[in-house]
């Protein structure tokens, strides 16, 4: 393993030769064309769509990955290949739904950006995502591109996220390169691309998709800042401070993750030294038992040869950067985004409930590879998923072992990465916890996988040691990466989420279609904005974004009985009255199937994740039989009811715009 001190500044710029094997570029593009054809076929529900989907992804991934694994590639070639692969994976999300939002969070951020464009100011409340208004980084940048470029919000977001993807790939490579050679750095970046979130989650229009690249950019700056001997300190520190500030006002979790990692890094330096003092007698020649001394000796070697000055410099640099990032976060939360406390609070409560259930023995774990509707992934996907998880665990442990075997190991930053990789493994059991566990795993995964990627790269590099030529020599390593890539996509995404297709009940992009979108546009045009509307999860997104409505959420009002009870009794009428609900948007298709996500409205509704039969059609059509309730809109599947007469005083005017 070739670990090294941070790179010195290069004195001259090399000429750029992006690809020795230039044919890889059209091959990757061909993969994208086939993917577009597969997606179009999936919309028509043809059987060949899914095999073509996987085939096109592999056509994009395999040649470029093999190119990176092979030795003898120049630094420029490696960076060029990584950029093509990174952008290619970004286009996978674009090709899924090229002209409009598709994922849940995309609609929430679309609304925030739309509000910014409408009111020309920041921090305007967004009832669909209250905390989002206080982290306006991506909204501001997207709005700026939309206005200056004269394009719609989604086109602007596509451009912004494309730029963010370039930053992510470049920053990852250069960050890894600070403490390893360019081959390890490029393989580590490649390994990062096989994480379950890279293709879809990190490419969606959400604040994390911009904040994560900025956080890695900041981390790269921090690594350069702490490099010894210090060079151009003022320039680097300005870059770091500016990027820290941008992360802090762009996304809460990214800023927390950055601060946590910097703190871990700062703690690692002195921790190593103090542990060393304790352990030194244990590894001496006279120490007993011998097996323990033998086990600990390589670990001791890790810091016993560490020169003091770079360690001190790294400690000082990482400490003050950690303190600065924490101060920024605290200041932002205190003065601007205090609502994040209310946002994060319920997560801890739900986690606490899970812990309580585990202690009580009443915890029911989630079925892996199973959607909320009970649909189970095919066997081969499940096998690939398990294999990916096992390979990740093996790769991380291999990396850790190699780190401690390397006698010239000198960098506390790498030790902090090792701790992060262990943290990722520790987070694996969260996937057994329904909803909250999956969500937390998905949200923390992109950060922790930076550390995992490095450990995997060390193992793969060891695997490829001594290799001189011949593509067949890299085949085992390539096979490992392919299994991890396929398996992680299977773990992270339901089959119905990966590709477009015919309508499915509450199934992310598969439930977003023109009838719901048109109904949302209609409410804005004919009912006006900010009407209080109650509806299911999917139409809530559409009404909150395209409809610009105030959609009532579970946090605000327990609306479920209004839709679930067979009759609209006194209690249900009281809910409507107390919540001043003006309109109900009812999608009759809810009774056509079990929701793919496991729930129709929210995760705490009755029978959530445990439903065996769809919602009865009668409970959705009961509003037709209520006196004074107007059915003002009908597009076949979607109906809109005016329920204001249930609570409005008789002499109040009907307030249509």
């Amino acid at each position, binding site marked *: 393993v070739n670990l090294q001190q941070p790179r010195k*500044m290069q004195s001259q710029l090399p000429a750029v030769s992006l690809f020795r094997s230039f044919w890889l570029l059209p091959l990757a593009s061909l993969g994208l064309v086939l993917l577009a054809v597969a997606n*179009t076929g999936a*919309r028509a529900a043809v059987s060949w769509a899914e095999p073509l989907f996987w085939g096109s992804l592999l056509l994009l991934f395999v040649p470029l990955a093999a190119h990176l694994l092979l030795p003898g590639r120049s630094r420029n070639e490696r960076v060029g290949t990584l950029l093509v692969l990174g952008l290619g994976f970004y286009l996978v999300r674009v090709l899924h739904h090229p002209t409009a939002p598709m994922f849940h969070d995309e609609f929430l951020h679309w609304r925030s950006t739309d509000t910014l464009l409408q009111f020309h100011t920041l921090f305007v409340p967004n009832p669909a995502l209250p905390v989002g208004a206080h982290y306006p980084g991506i909204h*501001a940048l997207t*709005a700026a591109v939309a206005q*200056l470029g*004269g394009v719609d919000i989604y086109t602007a977001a596509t451009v912004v996220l494309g730029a963010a993807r370039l930053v992510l790939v470049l920053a990852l490579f250069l960050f890894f390169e600070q403490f390893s050679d360019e081959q390890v750095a490029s393989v580590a970046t490649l390994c990062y691309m096989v994480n379950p979130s890279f293709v879809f989650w990190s490419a969606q229009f959400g604040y994390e998709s911009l904040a994560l690249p*900025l956080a890695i950019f900041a981390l790269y700056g921090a690594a350069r800042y702490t490099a010894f001997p210090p060079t151009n300190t003022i320039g680097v520190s300005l870059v770091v401070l500016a990027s820290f500030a941008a992360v802090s006002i762009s996304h809460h979790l990214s800023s927390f993750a950055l601060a946590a990692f910097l703190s871990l890094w700062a703690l690692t330096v002195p921790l190593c030294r103090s542990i060393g003092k304790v352990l030194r007698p244990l590894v001496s020649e006279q120490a007993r038992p011998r097996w323990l001394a033998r086990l600990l000796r390589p670990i001791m070697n890790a810091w016993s040869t560490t020169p003091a000055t770079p360690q001190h410099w790294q400690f000082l640099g990482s400490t003050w950067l950690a303190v600065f990032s924490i101060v920024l976060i605290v200041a932002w939360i205190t003065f601007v985004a205090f609502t994040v406390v209310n946002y994060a609070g319920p997560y801890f409560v739900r986690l606490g409930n899970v812990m309580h259930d585990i202690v009580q023995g009443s915890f029911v774990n989630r079925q892996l590879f199973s959607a909320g509707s009970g649909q189970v992934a095919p066997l081969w996907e499940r096998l690939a998923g398990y294999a990916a998880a096992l390979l990740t665990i093996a790769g991380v442990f291999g990396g850790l072992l190699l780190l401690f075997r390397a006698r010239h190991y000198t960098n506390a930053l790498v030790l902090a990465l090792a701790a992060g990789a262990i943290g990722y493994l520790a987070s694996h059991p969260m996937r057994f916890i329904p909803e909250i566990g999956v969500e937390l795993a998905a949200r923390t995964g992109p950060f922790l996988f930076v550390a995992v990627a490095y450990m995997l790269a060390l193992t793969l590099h060891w695997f490829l040691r001594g290799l001189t030529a011949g593509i067949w020599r890299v085949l085992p390593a390539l096979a490992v990466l392919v299994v991890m890539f396929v398996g992680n996509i299977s773990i992270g995404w339901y089959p119905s989420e990966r590709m477009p297709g015919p309508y499915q009940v509450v199934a992310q992009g598969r439930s977003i279609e023109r009838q719901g979108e048109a*109904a949302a546009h209609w409410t804005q045009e004919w009912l006006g904005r900010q009407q209080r509307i109650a509806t299911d999860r999917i139409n809530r997104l559409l009404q909150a974004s395209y409809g610009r409505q105030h959609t009532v959420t579970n946090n605000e009002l327990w609306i479920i009985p209004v839709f679930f009870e067979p009759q609209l009794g006194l209690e249900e009428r009281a809910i409507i009255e107390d919540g001043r609900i003006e309109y109900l948007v009812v999608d009759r298709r809810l009774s056509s199937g079990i929701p793919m996500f496991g729930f129709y409205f929210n995760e705490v509704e009755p029978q959530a994740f445990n439903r065996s039969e769809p919602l009865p059609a009668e409970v959705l059509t009961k509003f037709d039989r209520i006196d004074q309730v107007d059915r003002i809109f009908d597009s076949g*599947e979607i109906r809109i009811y005016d329920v204001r007469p249930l609570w409005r005083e008789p002499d109040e005017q009907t307030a249509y715009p």
Partner: protein
Amino acid sequence: MFAHYGENLMNKLPTLNWFPLLLTLGVGTVYMLLEQTGITVVSLRLPLAVLLLLVVPGYAAGAALFPRPIGGWAERWLLTIGLSITTAILGSLGIFWYAETLNERSWAVVSIGVALVFSFIALVRTPAKQQRLSTFQLSGRQLSVAGVSGMLALSAILIAIWGEQVYQTTFTQLWVVPAADQQSSALSIGVGNFEGRTTTYSISVQHGQDMLDQLSALTLAPGEEQVVTLDIDATRPYTQPITVMLYRADEQDTVYRSVHVWPE
């Protein structure tokens, strides 16, 4: 003293690095010209906006902060895009605090302003001969391959857009709301055609078994909508809702859509 600095600067002018400043001025001028002349060429505006927001400020900032090369083209591009994004985000916050109005003009002014300031710093700090830009050594054949690849990627996006447009659900919207004029007892009845083909409809308005009004042979092209106003007799006692039923010409016996309102 100032004369001394001025003389020094004049002597150094030919060897200074003018590129960030010229780039900023060039992009800014073209964008402002487009704005002032009111020319709205989307295909030109978007690349200019990308340059203005995502390239130029970061490039100038990178040149100012790192007058000596800090690595290869990867470092330079990371600084260019990363610092541009950072500048735009922090700039938005600055606009909010000082001007409060985030609009096209304020964003353009901040981007160009920041880029100009950094360009001047870079001009003073960076000797031209040290700012040697890396050159892309691409042969004609490689350029052709890159072009073909770009065309393929573009065609993938076009195929995806086409697929999205073709496989759409088809439906018709029917609605009834009180007419915009609140003083009258009129109703607005609307029909929107999303069937993907020209469709002919008929509408009947009933109160119980009483036929209040009828409209036939309403032909709408795809995407077209029609709104009619129906005056209702406010003096009449209504014991049931007024129901509006829509029929398609090809299935005249089946109610295709139905809405109803309870008169006040």
